């Protein structure tokens, strides 16, 4: 008589289904604590993108359109910064902002401003790298045509940004997607304080460590929906950015 094959453990499946259902209930019942965390996440990451984009895109433009000594070195440094883990960025800023650090007097540690600074540091190299690619792909005649038609350098720059808008939009979305989901810098710089600096990824980390999976899964679903939406837009914009 052969031994019977081991049966799958249905308890785990039941547990996952129950937790997911609880998560959906939390999400759609308008749980105020949950939605506050979501709002903090969007606010911090939104401000970080708004602050980081203008200087990052200007740097991207300079790298794409001007030749100067050290340009290649700058591009290499920026590429290196792309792969720095969020927790290292968080640690560096933590040292700078801690009480004994050079910027300790600003008293920014464990505030939303510190989280914004961390996310700016993470978003900046992504915006520069993708912005640089988008602007470099833009036909050089666009700049020359604008200038020869009498546009000031600022107007010509705006024109180039408009011509490369799909690629630049893809850069913004990619950077936003990266920073809203990062946990390392937010945890170290924000401190995961409820009603103040607790955002989606830090809340997921906390709730999971406590064994409260429902809220973690609910927030995970928000990130998943956000990731899907951003990717759908990304595909849309990158497709439009292709030359006809």
């Amino acid at each position: 008589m052969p031994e019977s094959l081991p049966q799958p453990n249905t308890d785990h499946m039941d547990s996952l289904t129950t937790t997911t259902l609880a998560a959906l209930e939390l999400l759609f019942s308008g749980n105020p604590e949950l939605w506050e965390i979501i709002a903090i996440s969007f606010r911090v990451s939104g401000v970080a993108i708004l602050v980081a984009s203008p200087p990052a895109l200007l740097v991207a433009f300079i790298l794409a359109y001007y030749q100067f000594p050290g340009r290649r070195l700058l591009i290499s440094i920026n590429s290196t910064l792309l792969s720095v883990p969020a927790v290292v960025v968080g640690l560096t800023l933590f040292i700078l902002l801690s009480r004994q650090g050079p910027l300790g007097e600003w008293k920014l540690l464990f505030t939303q401003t510190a989280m914004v600074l961390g996310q700016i540091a993470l978003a900046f190299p992504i915006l520069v790298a993708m912005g640089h690619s988008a602007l470099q792909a833009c036909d050089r005649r666009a700049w020359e045509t604008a200038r020869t038609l009498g546009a000031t350098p600022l107007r010509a720059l705006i024109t180039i940004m408009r011509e490369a808008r799909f690629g630049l939009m893809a850069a913004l979305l990619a950077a936003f997607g990266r920073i809203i989901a990062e946990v390392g810098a937010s945890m170290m710089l924000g401190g995961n304080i409820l009603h103040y600096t607790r955002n989606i990824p830090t809340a997921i980390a906390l709730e999971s460590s406590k064994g409260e999976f429902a809220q973690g899964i609910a927030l995970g679903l928000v990130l998943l929906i956000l990731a899907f939406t951003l990717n759908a837009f990304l595909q849309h914009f990158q497709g439009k950015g292709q030359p006809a």
Partner: protein
Amino acid sequence: MTTADQFNVHYLKKHYAKRQVLDEVTFSLQAGQTHLLSGDNGAGKTTLLRILAGLEKPDSIQIDLGMGPLNWRHVKKTLQQHALYLHQHPYMFDGTVSYNLGYAIGVKLTKQERQRQIDKALEWADLKQLSQAPAKSLSGGEKQRVSLARAWLKRPSILLLDEPTSNLDQESRHRTLSLLEAFKSDGTAMLLASHDPMHFPSLIDQHLRLDQGKLIRIDDQNPIEFDQTHPNFRSTA
């Protein structure tokens, strides 16, 4: 024009790596005259046009301004005020033909005045039926007409044209030539780079040839010879 009807360029030099592309080039452009700039591929025709448009920095240049030597920044600004460069393959901004024409008008005019000028340019270049067409989807000849209409709106003193009829069919070429003749009648000085002078027999007043960095003037003693059996000669002369 830097003077009423003449623009003088002296000692224009440009080199790439070890190659001297333009070697002490000196010439004058006259208002209302078309100057053909010929030369082999790579002779430096496009480089010369781009420098005169302020798009490329030369090793040295002097232009007549009656105020002594100027640095490149000032020369560039003056060139950009007076000269307009048209690429061999004109670039169309993403938008309609009207949007592209409006770009040349600037931002200071009222909406009504802008539209009035755009309408005039559309009529001038026979583009009325294409006013709302996406400019990037136009044919080569239509793009050339849009680019000339943009130039017409800017009213430059000097028009710098890089192979304006290359890759155009016969009909588009004739339409482009008639627009260039309108510029000439308006008193615009034109410097027209082409490796084939046969394309513009009725337009040309002076023939300049770039050869190994030197500019040679082809004059009465050394005339440009038109092939009178060439189809363009018969149809436009």
